[in-house]
Every structure is written in C-alpha cells, then in structure tokens.
C-alpha cells in the first residue's frame, strides 16, 4: 500500500479478528501429534472439530491437540436434517464449547453434499438462538444471500465435493457469491492443492477451509505450511489488483497512440 500507514488485513468474523485466512479441519489425520504439527505450521487461528469426535471422558481426546490460540469451531457433521444439527449445536453449548458453529447438514454420507433446505432452516434457528453460525453450503448465490439474511456470520460455499481434491469446480458461482456477499466468504471443501487455495483467494474469497489435502498429505505439517503461503500469496495478489485476463495478446504500447498526436 502506498499510504505509508500500516494497514491491517485481518479477517473479521462476528467482531473477532483473525490474522490467518486459512481454517483447518481435523479429520483424517494419522495422529493428534500430526494434527498439532499441521496446526502450528499452517498458522491457522480457527480449527473445526466434529462434535461426534469429541469425547472429554477419553484420554488423548482430539481437543487435547488444539493450542489455546486457535478458536474451536465445532461442526455438526453427521446431521441428517435441521433438527439434528440444532440439537448437536446445543449439545456443544451444553458441553461448554464455544458458541461458534460450523453448520453441516449432509444427508448423503458419500458425497457429503449439504442440504440447502435443511441448512437454511437450521441456520435461522441457531442464529436466533444466539450462535455464531458459519454454514457449509452449496455454491448457490441465492442460498448464500438467504443465509446472510438470517444472520449467518459467513457463508461457506463448496469448491467441489468434500475430500475430492478437485479444486474450484464451482468457480463461476463462487465469483457471483463473492461479488454479492456482505459477510466473509469462506471456500470450503474440494481444495486439494495449495494452488487451489491461491485461486480461491485471488477470485476474492475471504478465507479457505482445508482438511483432506493437509490431513492425508505425506507430511501434513509441511503441507500446512504450503497452504499458509498459498493463501497469503492469493490474498496479496487479490489486493494488488489482478489484471484481467484477455483472449489475445495486448500490446504494452498501444498501436493507436498516434491518433492523439495527429489531433493536436
């Protein structure tokens, strides 16, 4: 920036500042130790854990792997419908977990696609109930606006199917969602390589959530670091003002510049 003033580029969600725009999921890691190393290397400040995995009564529970500096975003993975998602969120609250909920309503256990109807219904109820709701949703621009309207703190449209590593198959819809959003847009699911994360940030996403690509990497900590850099690069590129791609070459020195001199 040329103003000379240090400008914060923190992400703000529901009044809370995040220095990192990379959120991390906690499934599929080979151990709590590997998870912790990836959290540290990625620099993430928000980590999502499925309530179904949490067992405070067990030794070595997954929560033990989380450093204090990260915000725990409990998710409702496994919920078939709005009622189940709402009950899971309330169980999390009753267990003393933060009231930040990643809303997941995925009735199909194979592609884990979010149910738009049930997600909206659950989001409305949880927002009314005082939760900070970050809904995982289809990349549907209208649905994202509806989720905003009921009070969600972000929208989290999918790049492609959870765990598919297919990248931004929904790119055209994501561009519309970013263009219209008044809350942060977090691209969640499908980001399978650091370059996908960069692409999401370049197209204007405010953050990305990554799990499988890091959790199943040969070296999760190194992959966490790679994503940290990729997100920073994409964000910096976006802020710097990306030139629009053209279909043909565009000369640096225009060929019609002479016309102005002829006029004078």
């Amino acid at each position, binding site marked *: 920036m040329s103003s000379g003033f240090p400008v914060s580029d923190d992400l703000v969600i529901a009044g809370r500042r995040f220095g990192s725009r990379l959120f991390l999921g906690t499934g599929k*890691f080979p*151990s*709590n130790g590997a998870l912790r190393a990836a959290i540290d290397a990625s620099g993430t400040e928000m980590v999502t854990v499925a309530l179904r995995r949490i067992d405070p009564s*067990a030794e070595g529970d997954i929560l033990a792997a989380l450093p204090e500096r990260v915000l725990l975003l409990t998710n409702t993975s496994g919920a*078939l419908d709005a009622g*189940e998602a709402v009950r899971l969120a309330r169980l999390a609250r009753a267990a003393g977990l933060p009231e930040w909920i990643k809303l997941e309503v995925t*009735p199909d256990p*194979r592609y884990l696609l979010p149910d738009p109807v049930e997600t909206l219904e659950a989001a409305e109820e949880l927002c009314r109930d005082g939760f900070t709701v970050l809904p995982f949703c289809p990349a549907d621009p209208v649905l994202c606006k509806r989720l905003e309207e009921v009070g969600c703190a972000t929208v989290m449209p999918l790049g492609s199917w959870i765990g598919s590593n297919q990248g931004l198959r929904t790119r055209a819809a994501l561009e519309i969602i970013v263009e219209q959003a008044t809350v942060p847009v977090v691209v969640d699911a499908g980001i399978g390589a650091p370059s996908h994360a960069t692409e999401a940030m370049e197209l204007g996403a405010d953050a990305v959530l990554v799990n*499988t690509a890091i959790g*199943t990497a040969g070296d999760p900590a190194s992959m966490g670091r790679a994503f940290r850099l990729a997100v920073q690069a994409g964000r910096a590129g976006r802020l710097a003002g990306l030139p629009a791609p053209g279909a043909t070459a565009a000369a640096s020195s225009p060929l019609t510049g002479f016309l102005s001199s002829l006029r004078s």
Partner: protein
Amino acid sequence: MTSTPILLESRPDRPPEGTAAADVVSVDVARLRAVAAAATGADVDRVLRSPHVDLAGFAALLSDAAAARLEDLAQAAHRITRARFGSTVRLFAPLYLSNECVSTCTYCGYSAGNDIRRRTLTLDEVRAEAVELHRRGFRHILLVAGEHARIVSRDYLEACVRTAAPLFPQVGVEVQVWDTDTYRRLVAAGCDGVIVFQESYNRDTYESVHLKGKKRNYAWRLAAPDRAAEAGMRRLGIGALLGLHPDWRAEAIALAAHAQALIRRWWRCEVQISLPRLRPAAGGYEPAEPVGDAAFVQLLCALRIALPGVGVSLSTREVPSLRDALVPLGVTTMSAGSHTEPGGYAEDSDAEPQFEISDRRSPAEVAAVLRAAGYDPVWKDWQRV
C-alpha cells in the same frame, strides 16, 4: 423417506418391489460372472483408469487377469482409502447377548442342534459388560445374539439397547431379522445400525446350509436392511460368509450389487460391508471352498475401488498379521479384544463362543499397532442426538 409396506405376516418368496433386495435379485450374476471369467489385462487397465466403476468393472477386478495385477489393485485401493477415510480406523466391540438359537445352520456354532453351553445375559449382566467395554475405551458397540424370538425377544433387545445407549454414542445390532415395526422400536431405544449378513447370496447354497428355522427364508432376510432403513436405521451392514458358496467371485458380485442397490434406495444411510471368512466352530463344519489370502485381498481391493465410500469392517476372525496388513488396503472399521461368547468381558464366561478368535490382542494393543503404522484409532465417531 418413501414407505415400503413390508408385512411380517406375508413373507413372500420374493422380496417386495421397490427394495434393494428386489434390485439384487434382478441382477444377472451369471452374466457378470462371465465378465470376470473373460476379462483381460487390457480390461483391468481400463477399469483402473476409470473414475467410476460399475458392476461389470467390479467383476473384471475379480478376474484372474486382475489377480496377476494384485499390486496395482492394492495401490489403487490404498490411494482411494487414504483420500476417502484418511489415516483413521474406527474401533468397535461386539457384545454377545445370547447364544440361544432355533435355527439350524450347518456352519454356525450356535446352531440349534449343537449340544453347547447356552446362556442369555440378564440386563444386569449386559450393563456390567457394557461398563467394562466402556472402561476399555469403546464408544461404539454391536449387540449380537442368536436367533430365538422368545428368549431373545424384541422386548429383550429393546431393553438391551436402552441399557447400552447411555454409555455408547453408537449402538448397532446383529441379531435375527425383524419386521419394520420392531426395527422402529430399536431405533427409538437408541439403536442406529443393523448388520445382516446374507451369508450366501446364492439361493441354492443358502438353502443347503440353512436347514431349519425362520432363517431359511432367503427373501425375508435379503430385504431386512430395507426394513431397517425404512425404520430409520442409519447404518446398514451387509456381508457374505466367505467359504459357504464355492464360487467366491459370484458371491462378491452379488454382495457389491446389494451395497450399490442399498446406496441408491437408501441414500441417507451409511452402508458398510463385512468380509467374514468361515472359522472353525462347534458342529465341525468345513468350508466348501476356503477363500485364500490372495483372493481375500483381491476382493477387498476390488470393493474399495468400485465402492470408494463404503466402509469395510474386519473382525477378529482374522489373524493379527493379516488384519494389520489389510488396513491400508481399505479396512475402515475393526473390532478388537472381542469375546464371541455371551459374557466374558466383565468376568470369565464358560458359554460357547460363536466362532474362534484369531486375533487375541487387547484393544489397547491393537490401538498401539495402528498408531505405530501411522493410523489414528478412532474410538468415538458419532453423537446421538
């Protein structure tokens, strides 16, 4: 969900229309079996490169040509398992409630004619077993019983589920097949999954080993997962008892067809496959055609490639070295430290086990081996709401 009327009174010879069971019956297993017999190396290549594998592709993966490419199958299965399930293995324990049985099944230690020590746990004993399993770390359990509708009645099963549910976020049952209403009662009590092995999908083989009892009705059993799903069960476990039918490839084709049909009909349910191989048991049954280790591995890899999101469960029937080696190839769920006789966790039991255990390691030992191999043993992966 659509409601499929399946009545207890009317146990037809064919499964009702509109069920996964009817879909399985309509599959031309012989034609697919011929695909397996004729498949060439080039066919196997094509399947391995294909993003979606249909039943014909699955059959090709069972072929001799594919057996010659076992390492390629294993590499593909490993990649898919890693992407879909990560480096995690869910652990569960069976809790045997009763070895009473009125069915005569030639291969089973519990078979009605066998002169064995029979026992049915009281609810207090069920509670004691459950407490002990919880202490050992388990949060997912499977209640197992022989088929005796009077002693192991629906009231008894419902009470057992209610006894276990407060301790375990996930409770499944592997018991005789029931009607939809009974499954509904079990769901309401806190049960969320059923396991029903068809034992053999080949009707002739099925009838030749199930001599007496309600279990003789092939179609009624085949449609049990449909009834369970209709009743609200979320997890449907199926399996074939490998070794009963002499042609394991034909059995595998029908098993995969059943999984695929259940996924299509009951798209909200999680479908899981078990691959039990026949073990020595009381009664002295000898498998018609034991499935060898290489064929077993080929089958596991083929299932993982054709049905990438379907969980595969492996019991303590298998020896430790094989169990450990199969995890990277597609096993996603394991039992550990199992007792297959009623009682036996909280204190010693002299009741007859259903089959002999080959992996006698404790749950903690199995978990330690998984961790050493780079896997996270997951004890809790569900939350009842």
